[in-house]
């Protein structure tokens, strides 16, 4: 029987793949979004900063910042899910990916529901890929702040999958 891969090596491979996917997108850094990984589950965090405010009187997050956060979470979640098999099969060529050949899914449409005002503090989001085909994928995203059960926004979108050779 094959020996199980050492846990440190497994984590290093997964975290490297995730950082390569995330770090290639300047806008993710612009928004202040980062990703935590537990196994194959990703949780996105948008760290609060004053530039995210849309209504200074309340204050509340800008609806556009919330929409962007959800869209970033959906795209990275979808890319991550679709690459997971290759990451685990160790067939993903990380070096090739680092040189910029990894194409991300493209948004076809995206619908955001605003459930309550975004508070001036960190926000979290998780994406669920409801359907992923060769060409199209459907993704749902939920975002919350202090309380996981009190969503402040959710979104659904359709995405065009990158066409990859081999």
């Amino acid at each position, binding site marked *: 029987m094959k020996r199980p891969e050492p846990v440190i090596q497994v984590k290093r491979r997964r975290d490297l793949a995730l950082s390569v996917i995330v770090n290639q997108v*300047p*806008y993710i850094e612009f928004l202040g979004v980062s990703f935590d990984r537990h196994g194959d589950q990703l949780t996105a965090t948008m760290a609060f900063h004053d530039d995210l*405010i849309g209504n200074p009187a309340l204050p509340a997050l800008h609806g*556009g910042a919330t*929409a962007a956060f959800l869209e970033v979470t959906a795209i990275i979640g979808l890319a991550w899910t679709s690459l997971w098999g290759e990451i685990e099969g160790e067939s993903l060529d990380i070096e090739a990916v680092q040189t910029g050949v990894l194409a*991300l899914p493209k948004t076809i449409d995206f619908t955001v529901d605003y459930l309550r005002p975004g508070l001036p503090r960190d926000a979290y989001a998780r994406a669920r890929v409801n359907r992923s085909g060769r060409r199209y994928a459907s993704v749902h995203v939920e975002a919350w702040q202090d309380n996981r059960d009190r969503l402040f926004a959710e979104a659904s979108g359709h995405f065009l999958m990158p066409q990859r050779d081999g």
Partner: protein
Amino acid sequence: MTQSEINAARQFIDAIPHSRRLGMKVEQLGEGRAIISMPYDTLLIGDPVTKVIHGGAVSALMDTAGGAAVVAHPLAGLGTATLDLRIDYMRPATPGQTITATAECYHVTRTVAFVRATACDADTDRPVATATGAFTVAKGRA
């Protein structure tokens, strides 16, 4: 709407921190209509291969233009929040070009404002994205 009401609405929109951070500028405002531009910036790139701006930044532009059209509507008050926003992406915006969103608040009830918007780059014949949304209505001016 009086000119001073339009000026107040313009000041209100110009003061939105996230829109300022994205470099947005109010190009035109009045009677339930808003035109807002967002210059190209490499910080906003969503696709590292093509250098195309991230859809999220286009969403933020659409949301700002939609909200601006609402506060510029004679029957809505100063201040609004997005209830929902749907965006359709027709094509990637050309890297290097300013994106301009035109939003129209086409119906207002006592509680809800309905908006549609179109975003274009320099090629104004082929929209980059369209959006429809519903926004809250602050207490009317009347």
